[in-house]
């Protein structure tokens, strides 16, 4: 049957209102739970760079509140507290992906400090978030440096989306453990760490700035190297500053 235009208009209007209503309601109801799961996810990733943590079993938020102290620095290594509009910056909420496209000087660079369990004034590690390009999609990571600002304490990497390929291995503990104990500085010169081509599976073959590669995923490794180098360069002033302060103490 052919309907009149008025009928069609009224029908579509009612449908739009119902659909809009249902969706708004759902988004309102689920909003808090979503915020919480995103927060939990970010914080457990930050923590997983420095400790083994299971999101389902451990009290991630509790440990995070107790151990992590966070702030944001700029490319000169100075602490920034407010953004250009004068709002207070929350380090956990800084959109690292968005800033990763800009040059260092325009980035906000969050720093997460892991405090010692006994001595709350002693820093165990500094954790830096980063974003870069993998083979298929964005990759991200957190690199944790020991208090000497030179030795890698641990890393945690991931890919933004299910990656159809071998590069997905960067998210596994096996690969991430290979970074432990590597150095990023040679004196005051930043050399970063580099994942090599090919896979030898023998840790003794590699120097302090080299990491065993992933077979079949050389390009993801390259992306990883570029990302680490890029971000360490951005953080370099902060790294040197902190390093020298510690040397002066």
């Amino acid at each position, binding site marked *: 049957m052919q309907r009149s235009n008025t009928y069609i208009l009224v029908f579509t209007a009612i449908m739009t209102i119902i*659909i*809009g209503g249902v*969706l*708004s309601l759902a988004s309102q109801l689920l909003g808090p739970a979503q915020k919480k799961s995103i927060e939990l996810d970010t914080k457990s990733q930050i923590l997983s760079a420095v400790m083994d943590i299971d999101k389902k079993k451990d009290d991630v938020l509790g440990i995070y509140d107790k151990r992590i102290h966070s702030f944001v620095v700029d490319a000169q290594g100075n602490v920034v507290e407010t953004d250009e509009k004068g709002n207070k910056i929350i380090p956990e909420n800084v959109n690292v*992906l968005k800033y990763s496209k800009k040059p260092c000087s325009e980035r906000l660079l969050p720093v997460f400090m892991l405090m010692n369990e006994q001595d709350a004034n002693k820093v165990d590690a500094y954790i830096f978030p980063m974003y870069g390009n993998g083979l*298929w999609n*964005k990759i991200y990571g957190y690199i944790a440096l020991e208090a000497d600002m030179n030795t890698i304490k641990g890393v945690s990497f991931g890919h*933004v989306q299910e990656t*159809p390929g071998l590069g997905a291995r960067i998210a596994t503990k096996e690969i991430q453990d290979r970074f432990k104990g590597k150095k990023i500085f040679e004196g005051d010169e930043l050399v970063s760490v580099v994942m090599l081509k090919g896979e030898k599976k023998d840790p003794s073959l590699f120097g302090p700035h080299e990491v065993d590669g992933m077979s079949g995923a050389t*390009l993801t490794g390259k992306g990883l190297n570029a990302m680490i180098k890029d971000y360490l360069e951005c953080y370099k002033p902060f790294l040197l500053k902190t390093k020298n302060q510690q040397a002066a103490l």
Partner: protein
Amino acid sequence: MELINLGIRSIFIDNMIFAYFLGMCSFLAVSKKVSTAIGLGAAVVFVLGLTAPVNWLVQEYILKEGALTWISPAFETINLEFLQFIMFIAIIAAIVQLVEMVVEKFTPALYGALGIFLPLIAVNCSILGGSLFMVQRDYTLAEAAVFGAGSGMGFMLAIVALAAIREKLKYSNVPDGLKGLGITMLITGLMGIAFKSFIGIVL
């Protein structure tokens, strides 16, 4: 330079078909003849190249958290992202409709070639996929446009190549159970291996 690189990537490396399986339905259904494959491919390039930047604007100025501040600063906390799917698909459907009308009015010859494919395209996964990927990867407007057009060309390349193979395949003796869809899947897999050789090309 970045843009050219992105274009090349989205045509050859991040190919909609071989890397993400998007638009498979029409890829398999409309690849029996080269001439129709070219028609559908052209329509996809056209629509994808148009919807990606338009949806980018929608995402940036309507949907994103704080996107409505251009109306009034008071809207800073409003986040309409939960309407993303519905907005995107509505815009795609609207653009397809619009393109169809414009093409019909001004270039009847092109309409004759593209016409029948346009309605098919609204529900082609690669179109919506293009918009969703663009948001997920945080592209800029220019990047979104290049990515859209590039992905469309990647799709066209794939479907025309497959159609050419299938035209030849008519003369082959394929086992009964493999005829049609089965052998096409296997061929697509083999073509995917060929496309792998583009990996690593960076301009």
